[in-house]
């Protein structure tokens, strides 16, 4: 019995070590100052931080990678979330969207935050700092609403 556990343990350990060699693309590149959301809309430092901490990991070309995000299979799952997230909305490239698209994106952003669908709960589980408090939500939403009306 004990030897079985030992073998299972060793097999799992080997598997765990092996999957560490599965390559993942790190989501990191230069920020274009002409199209980045927080830069072009000159947001306050508070708004900038909220967006960067709660949204930018999956919705921009730059993810902050703490050590546990580099471990497999977490890195792999994260990579999928990021590529999906960027496809829906990329804050680094927001300035390149047409006005029509900017407005509809803002509408969706506001609705996702209002309904607590974003940031994803599985993300805030690990990144508790990304969780928006009620106050932060209100501030962010009213700022986003103003922005949307101004486009």
């Amino acid at each position, binding site marked *: 019995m004990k030897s079985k556990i030992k073998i299972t343990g060793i097999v*799992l350990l080997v598997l765990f070590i092996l999957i560490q060699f599965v390559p993942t693309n790190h989501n990191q590149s230069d920020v274009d100052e002409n199209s980045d959301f927080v830069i072009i809309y000159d947001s306050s430092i508070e708004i900038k931080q909220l967006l960067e901490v709660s949204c930018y990991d999956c919705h921009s070309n730059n993810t902050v990678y703490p050590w546990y995000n580099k471990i497999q299979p977490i890195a792999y799952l994260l990579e999928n979330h990021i590529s999906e997230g960027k496809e829906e909305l990329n804050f680094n490239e927001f300035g390149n969207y047409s006005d*029509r698209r900017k407005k509809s994106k803002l509408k969706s952003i506001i609705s996702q935050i209002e309904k607590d669908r974003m940031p994803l709960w599985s993300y805030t589980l690990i990144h508790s700092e990304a969780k928006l408090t009620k106050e932060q939500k209100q501030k962010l939403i009213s700022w986003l609403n103003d922005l949307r009306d101004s486009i």
Partner: protein
Amino acid sequence: MKHLKTTFSILLFTAFFLTLASCKNENKKTASDRQIEAKEIKTPNHNHNMDHDNGAGHHHNDNSPSQHNRKSIIKAKNNEVLSPIVAAYIQIKEALDADNQTAAATGGKKLLVAFSGFDKSNLKGDSLNEYLEISESAIEQTEHIIKSPIEHQREHFETLSEDVADLISLLKDEK
């Protein structure tokens, strides 16, 4: 030593299954959300005149385009260039009115086909640019309508309605 290994393997197991479980729960959550939110959405539909008390939203989950839009939509139905787009749009609208998620998605697929079959060779300069902007947005909304639960379909239908209305006013003079 043996103890350590067992503990370690248990930890590994748990970690692995937790990550798997978190993915599965994502889907479950949306499924149960669907029911709750479907109920929430139905309520504002009944009080069209009490527009103010919807908190931050200036927009509603009301599937009907404005009176003005409705007229132009009926006209556009007879416009040859636009009719496949308008027909598919109306199919989505009717599906959402009937709370039918699948039918709305089917209508969405038809709308994508209609857009890809749209002949834009008569459009030039500004009109062409505007058409491209509108269709880009409309297609994006439609893709969401195809893959989303009904309450999210409704959100994107709102934006789609604006796009289709703008498209109609852009193309009403085209033959």
